[in-house]
């Protein structure tokens, strides 16, 4: 490819999983369909890495922009592009989907279960929708991809989940997300329509160049904040996540929890669309973040299932990111983005480990486990590494991000920063206690006493996130420098008004 601008890189990225999903949906043979799906996911990953390689690191603006009329009458366009803020989410998403596919390798292989084709098809469709959210620069296109994520998740959870309550939980998830979509739609419409004199516009660059003012700005910001807060999730809208984590297929939960779309929405849309209101309401963002850290950190102490605990602690982590956004500083934004990428690795990886554990022991309830390390030292080691990354241990990718956010928060919102420090202690206690009960000690569950350690394919799908976790933790400079131009531009836009 001589000129990266000549080829629609991003559209290809979105098209690959969609096409693969189509093939996977019609193919009936489970053994072949998973190879097709994996090929599609790997191709997507390769393509995402290609985009990263072709990206110009010094340009803070949008790159690889593709534009086409979609609904010309009202200026809604198919407009995609990436900048430094969103670029790295593409390979992170693609990587996590590859790992999730491998983790779900056994789906459909037993006679009693549903066939594998639709599973992989839904998964790939979900991948396309997720990538679409990260690429979309038109607000209506964002809304389209945002809602497109729901059907695959609904079917994946209600059909392939576990436990008798899975359909109810899937339905509740669907309804809550739909309800969350209402303020999103209204907020985006309000942003698009609220200009006296100017034409209606839905594309992000135009909207950002205009200056929202007065009550409209507050309306837009609050609506968008509410919409994304549901997805983040921010206390008190968080209860869907632990219950979802309990019944969903673990590999799918790794995706739902690992990809922090809500926080990305805040960074990309909610704050830039109404910067004045966002700056005025910084206390709301910081307060929501701090409350989430403390609330979820404390709630994690008393849950008795590893999946719910991991879900709770991930809620607490993303609270830290929200707190970082409230500081409107370059270093905190860098830290927040680094943390979000770290979650794809650490939380995603943690849930993948739990997926493997679930397959062996049949449960992730702490009191039904114990002594896992005796039979599965490698599985335990990986879980420990990912959890340590979540705790912000130096040497893992969790540390630089947490450091950047906490330092910035201590400056601008000292109280919330102290809450984050307290959350650090809570997180350590909240992780170590269940870890001790579930992984250490003597095995008494016969399933565990006879289980095997990680299979080669499981090892393969954990090794990449683990290696990245350590590598980013030891040398975070390249990623932070990649984020810097866009982060500086973001802060200048917000603070310069």
């Amino acid at each position, binding site marked *: 490819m001589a000129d990266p601008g000549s080829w629609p890189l991003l559209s290809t990225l979105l098209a690959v999983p969609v096409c693969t999903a189509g093939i996977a949906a019609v193919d009936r043979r489970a053994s072949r369909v998973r190879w097709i799906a994996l090929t599609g996911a790997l191709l997507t990953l390769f393509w995402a890495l290609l985009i990263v390689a072709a990206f110009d690191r010094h340009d803070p603006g949008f790159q690889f922009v593709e534009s086409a009329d979609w609904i010309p009458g009202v200026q809604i366009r198919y407009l995609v592009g990436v900048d430094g803020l969103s670029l790295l989410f593409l390979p992170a998403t693609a990587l996590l989907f590859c790992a999730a596919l491998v983790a779900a390798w056994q789906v459909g292989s037993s006679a009693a279960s549903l066939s594998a084709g639709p599973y992989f098809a839904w998964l790939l469709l979900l991948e396309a929708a997720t990538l679409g959210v990260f690429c979309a620069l038109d607000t209506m296109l964002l809304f389209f991809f945002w809602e497109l994520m729901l059907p695959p998740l609904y079917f994946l959870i209600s059909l392939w989940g576990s436990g008798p309550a899975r359909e109810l939980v899937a339905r509740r998830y669907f309804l809550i997300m739909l309800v969350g979509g209402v303020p999103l739609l209204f907020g985006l419409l309000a942003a698009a329509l609220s200009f006296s004199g100017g034409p209606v516009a839905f594309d992000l660059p135009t909207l950002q160049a205009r200056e929202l003012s007065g009550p409209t700005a507050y309306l837009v910001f609050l609506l968008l904040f509410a919409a994304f807060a549901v997805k983040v999730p921010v206390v008190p809208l968080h*209860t869907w996540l632990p219950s979802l984590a309990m019944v969903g297929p673990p590999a799918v939960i790794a995706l739902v929890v690992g990809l922090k779309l809500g926080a990305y929405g805040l960074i990309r849309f909610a704050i830039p669309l109404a910067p004045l209101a966002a700056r005025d309401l910084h206390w709301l963002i910081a307060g929501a973040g701090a409350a989430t850290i403390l*609330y979820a950190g404390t709630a994690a102490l008393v849950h008795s299932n590893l999946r719910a605990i991991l879900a709770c602690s991930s809620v607490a982590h993303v609270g830290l990111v929200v707190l970082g956004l409230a500081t409107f500083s370059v270093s905190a934004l860098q830290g927040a983005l680094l943390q979000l990428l770290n979650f794809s690795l650490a939380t995603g990886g943690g849930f993948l480990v739990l997926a493997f554990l679930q397959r062996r022991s049949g449960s992730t309830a702490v009191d039904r486990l114990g002594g896992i390390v005796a039979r599965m030292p490698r599985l335990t080691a990986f879980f420990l590494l990912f959890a*340590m990354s979540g705790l912000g241990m130096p040497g893992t990718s969790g540390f630089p991000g947490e450091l950047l956010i906490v330092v910035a928060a*201590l400056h601008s919102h000292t109280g919330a920063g102290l809450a984050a420090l307290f959350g650090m202690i809570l997180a350590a206690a909240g992780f170590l206690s269940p870890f001790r009960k579930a992984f*250490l000690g003597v095995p008494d569950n016969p399933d565990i006493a006879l289980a095997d350690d990680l299979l080669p394919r499981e090892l393969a799908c954990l090794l990449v996130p683990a290696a990245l976790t350590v590598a980013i933790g030891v040398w975070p400079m390249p990623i*932070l420098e990649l984020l810097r131009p866009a982060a500086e531009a973001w802060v200048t836009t917000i603070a310069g008004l």
Partner: protein
Amino acid sequence: MNDWDAFSAALAAALRLVWLVPVLPLFAAVLIALLLLAARGCGDSGERLSAALASGTLLGALVVLAVVDLAALLGVAPGHLVAADWLRIGRVPVRVSFALDAYSLPAATLIALVAWITVRFSTRYLHREAGFSRFFLGLALFAGGMLLIALSGNAVMTFVGWELAGFSSWLLVGYAWERPAATASAQFVFVTNRVGDAGFLLGIGLAVWSAGTLEWAWLAGDGTMATVTARLLAAGFVLAALVKSAQLPFTPWITRALEGPTPSSAIFYGSLMVHAGVYLLCRMQDLLLMVPDLLLVIALIGLSTAFYAALCASVQSDVKSALIYPTLAQVGLMLVFCGLGLFWIAALHAGLHAAWRVVQFLLAPAWLNLARRPARPVPRWLAGRRWLYTAALQRLWIENLVYSLLIRPTLALGRDLQAFDAQFIDPLIGTPVDDSHPSRSVVAGGLPHRPGLAGWALTAVARRLEDVEGQLLMSGDGALERVLRRTAGYAGTVEALLEQPRYLMLMVMATFAVIL
């Protein structure tokens, strides 16, 4: 003279390699971890390999340190060496920098030496134990962390070492993972250490914004820093130092840490990590001297810890505890020196004390053989006062206090929050799902059992509409139905008319007229 120039140039070049000192043991830790991952860490060959890795890298670190020491003695070494930029916090760079001065070099050399001796000792001591390689992984990680604490020239790199030391403590204390007591102690040690880490981060955060630098050498600023800021800034680091040195009220973790199965792990708490706090205080002495009231607090805490430890020491009945309390008392005295501003005495005391305790702790398992005499009884002044005796035996109930004042309320709060989720937020949003009682949440008809406020309102409206509809349709003698049928007939006619193009055109034109 020419030879001397060449020699000092070579020394100066060798100084650039000082980063190897903490990195070598960490590298050994990574390699041992990979060995374990590849399932090559077991068996005699695996034992030999991981022991060789740990001791070899530590010996290498010792050799590099000897060269650096020589350079420092000859006056070639700069006091502060920057190796690289790690990241930037706003305008403040976080560097990989090393302090090479009279505090750091002796400390680092001592640490490397003690760690190396311990590794050599443990190779024999732990021969053919399950988890041999894991133990050496912890040792190497710990040695790397401690060397980083000693050599680092700035707060963030010290913090990295600080956390690594805490994490490896967890690994070492929980070495016997089958035993609940060991794992519980490991957890206690880690969480307590985490309190100090939070203080450390607070210090780092304030340093970035008030001092504008993270290098220890310039942390005190140019004397223009406001006393309030300096006090807060120092307080964070002092909290970290108190926790790491197990001073009051954080003493319980160190006795728990003795749960580590071997004297080798005990000596880390007996001789190295417990002095890290004192070392940190010495490192930031310029800053501390700006806030005399904090110095007073440090001295008081050190003094009370010394008394406390002396009291507890006289009633201990096992060798390790009988050694750790005198250690704590000595560390308390070092804090008193720090509080009096005599940092160099504290550092000297720490070094000598650490060297002595290594020997003592390594000999502890053989104590009964070596001593050849019964243990001394409890001193008479203590034995006579029963309440004091009980207090000493119970270690002043500090652990119980922590449990009932901190841990239990936090857990209770957690349960409250969970109940709040389940009984308030869930009913508001809908579908509380109880996995253990699925029948409670699933009802026929598909609607969730407790649909939440929104769902409940929706259901109520739907039911009311259904009622209205039912009454309209079902009651009466079908009059309504006839009306409806007639209306449907009209509608059909209108539709048929509309299907003719001219009326459709008319409709469209009318619509346009309305819009325009």
